[in-house]
């Protein structure tokens, strides 16, 4: 079966499998409508806002091909959401600290480990992936490479971003008697929407 898949289909399958194994959720979406539907599903699975709070902040940035989507409007359908785009305010750190969900794009993703790579830059931040209790990453299927080494290789030659990271699942620990606990310092709920551009 696998051998008949084109390379990026095989990568998508493996990415989804490994990301799920690492403790994340996955939605596959082809086209605008499917992406919006997946965002809705992801919202109800990942963001668990306090209903007694009057504003539910969300912090987000997406890759260029998804920038035309009206994220604020879409998210407002789910409740009193106030969505802040990365870089739209001075105090992004404060926003990320109070956000109920962080949404990010990614530079590349890795199939065999189920990972996503995020760079810190003016337009792409890391805090949305670490400070809120939940993180949703939007992954273009064409950006999934097979191995970590391939992903790193893509970065060679150009100056590296001073800060970047590879995320593989939720924040977790087994430091207390070897018992696995999800959500230590970073998000306990992570999801990925794999979309087609």
């Amino acid at each position, binding site marked *: 079966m696998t051998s008949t898949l084109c390379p990026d289909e095989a990568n998508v399958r493996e990415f989804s499998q*490994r990301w799920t194994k*690492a403790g994340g959720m996955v939605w596959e979406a082809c086209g605008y409508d499917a992406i919006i539907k997946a965002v809705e599903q992801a919202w109800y699975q990942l963001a668990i806002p306090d209903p007694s709070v009057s504003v539910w902040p969300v912090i987000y940035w997406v890759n260029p091909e998804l920038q035309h989507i009206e994220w604020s409007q879409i998210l407002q359908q789910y409740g009193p959401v106030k969505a802040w785009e990365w870089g739209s305010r001075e105090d*992004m*750190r404060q926003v990320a*600290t109070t956000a109920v969900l962080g949404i990010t794009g990614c530079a590349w993703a*890795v199939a*065999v*480990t*189920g*990972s996503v790579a995020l760079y*810190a*830059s*003016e337009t792409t*931040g*890391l*805090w949305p*992936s*670490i400070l809120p209790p939940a993180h949703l990453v939007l992954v273009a299927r064409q950006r999934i490479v097979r*191995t*970590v*080494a391939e992903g*790193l*290789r893509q*970065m*060679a030659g150009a100056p*590296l*971003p*001073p*800060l*970047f*990271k*590879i*995320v*593989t*699942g*939720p*924040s*977790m*620990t*087994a*430091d*207390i*008697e*070897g*018992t696995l*606990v999800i*959500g*230590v*310092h*970073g*998000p306990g709920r992570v999801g990925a929407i794999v979309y087609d551009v």
Partner: protein
Amino acid sequence: MAGTLPADPTPWHERRDAGLSDSTMRRTIGTVTKRFSTGQRQVFNGYPEGATAREAAVKAKRQAIRDLDTLLPRLRDSVETNGGQTYLARDATEAVAVVVKIAQSRKVQRIIKTKSMLTEELQLNQALQEAGLSVVETDLGEYIIQQAHETPSHILAPAAHKNRDQIETLFRDDAREKGITPPNSNNAESLTRYARQRLREDFLHADMGITGGNFAVAETGTVVLITNEGNADMVTTLPSILVSVVGIEKIMDTWETLGTIIQQPAMNGIGQRLSSYTTFVSGPRREGVVEGPVEWHLVLVDNGRNLLRGTEFEDVLSCIRCGACLNVCPVFRQVGGHAYGSVYPGPIGIVETPLLTDWRILPELPTVGCTVCHACGEACPMEIDLPHHIIQLRQEKVRRHLVASGVARSYRWWAKMWATASGYQRSLRWARWGQRLYLKQGTLHDAPGIAHGWFVSRNMPPVASETFHEWWLKHRQGGT
């Protein structure tokens, strides 16, 4: 130049007995090591690329150690080109002085830290606290033992010796002191939730972060940090000053070779293909970027590492601190990490402690901490020949006259006797004669000299009144 490492001055037999009688520690350490070693075995199943990468990583790491003289200046150049500052500390005193000076000159007050065995080795926290600075460990395990004023008992799971009741007591005391809500039960989730809330405050208010480093890439000037909790992401993105304290042996030559080794700590340490967070720092933040430090300082530490280069122990510098050798070691699993008295326990600790310090501390380790079962040699992903090194260190100990003269004489005599068949037979006749003093109800309960230790926890059957050899000598004329 020899390095300095902290050592527990308690004699070995007391450390050992304390470990053996700590049933809580033995239960928790048993669970943790089993989980890790099973994970390591399983993660390579059906993942041949992982095994191929491991082989390439061994070669690349060995080469990087050989090329250290050129890679070290290269790394410093790359980091400085990226806007960071670098320092080379020959020993613990120099390393600590550099970090304290950075903190004091910038009027730092609150420091947050990621887990780093090297900073344990340097006793950095102690020095920072003596300088009046507040330093908080942010890895959950490290946070627990910091609260308990203890040292790590396992390279990867520093609090593996503590159970949830003990941790709950620590957190309740902390909550009382701070006037905050304590954890609501002793289950791992509530304890973790308490630590999350408590440490979140520290993350957001710290003005300096300190990290270790799993790898440092000379070509690009990058320090790589691997965590599952995400604390390194906080420490590297939130405070305005970042200090990374990294051993010189962590250097990899190129970005390409980093790709071969990057998964190995997680695969061999916890049985995952990659840890939840792999964080890369290559410089301070650029204009227009809000995350990351304004200043990045990289302190490269020798502290005895160069002593191993060019010797038969050079491969020891390839260690990636995965802890796999600890997890499979029958001695470690019984006595736990603290019994070793060194920052580095288990087989790697037995080998590294005397080597890094030129035998100045804990010279007993190679003799007392190993049954020569070879499990560590098989588990080590970096193919460090730990069992062979332990034997070599035992020999070196004799050469350096670090073995009590009575003990050395006894072994020499024993070796001489058993080198010939007649000597062996004579020794048995003497033993048969001498054992009468120690026989009780047909069992040997003690023996003189170095053999006494053997009977502390066990008895032995006596030498037979007629051994097979003796029987054979009598009967072989009859033909077989």
